[in-house]
């Protein structure tokens, strides 16, 4: 498993290869499904004048919380392997911001694991987004739908 936090853009092929290789080492011949989710920065302001977002994090805790989350997903969905990457710092619209990947014998577990990682990441990993325009910046508010998605997993437990 892996959980990475950093400023630099990430490489799809490198992440996919790492996930596939780890899974293959653990269960050769029994990895049928690999799912990846990549989040890009959206210009989600109706005015269309947002240039991007600035991501603040809690160094140390962010890495630990993301590691714990990936391990929880592996246990909960019996994944063969999983990984997550989140960027911090200043990101412009359309840039890659987050990646999660899951490997499992079957498709359902890989898809559920990836969804779980994204839902819980929005709840339990200390990262904060601030949208910026040319002249201003504003903290992004928590979405009620994000809280609900995370709560649903907690209830299912």
């Amino acid at each position, binding site marked *: 498993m892996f959980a990475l936090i950093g400023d630099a853009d990430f490489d799809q092929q490198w992440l996919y290869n790492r996930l596939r290789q780890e899974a293959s080492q653990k269960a050769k011949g029994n990895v049928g499904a690999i799912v990846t989710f990549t989040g890009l920065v959206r210009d989600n302001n109706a005015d269309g004048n947002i240039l991007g977002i600035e991501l603040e994090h*809690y160094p140390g805790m962010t890495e630990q919380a993301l590691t714990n989350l990936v391990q929880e997903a592996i246990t909960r969905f019996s994944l063969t392997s999983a990984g997550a990457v*989140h960027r911090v710092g200043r990101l412009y619209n359309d840039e890659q911001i987050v990646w999660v990947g899951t490997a499992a014998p079957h498709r359902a577990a890989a898809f559920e694991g990836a969804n779980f990682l994204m839902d819980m990441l929005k709840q*339990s990993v200390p990262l*904060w987004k601030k949208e910026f325009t040319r002249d201003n910046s504003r903290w992004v508010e928590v979405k009620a739908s994000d809280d609900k998605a995370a709560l649903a997993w907690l209830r299912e437990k």
Partner: protein
Amino acid sequence: MNVTVKTFAQLREITQEGCFTLTLPESAVTMGDVITLLKSRSDKWSQALGASAGSENGSVLMARNQQLCDIQTHVQPGDELAFFPPVTGG
């Protein structure tokens, strides 16, 4: 006893104190006690932690040694305590 206090995002901006050492009286044993103490530190802290901090639906989250915790959590000398708003990553 001494602890380190960290703040992030809006709380860092409001308090204008991102990281500092706080000396606690012997009577301060829980995160709730620390919050009471911080609220009396300045108007900015009072505003940052608000009325709801630490309550069930509080809009302030807290961590002890980089683990999420709540107002009942006990505090030890040398702890790293952090206060921040709900997270918005992903």
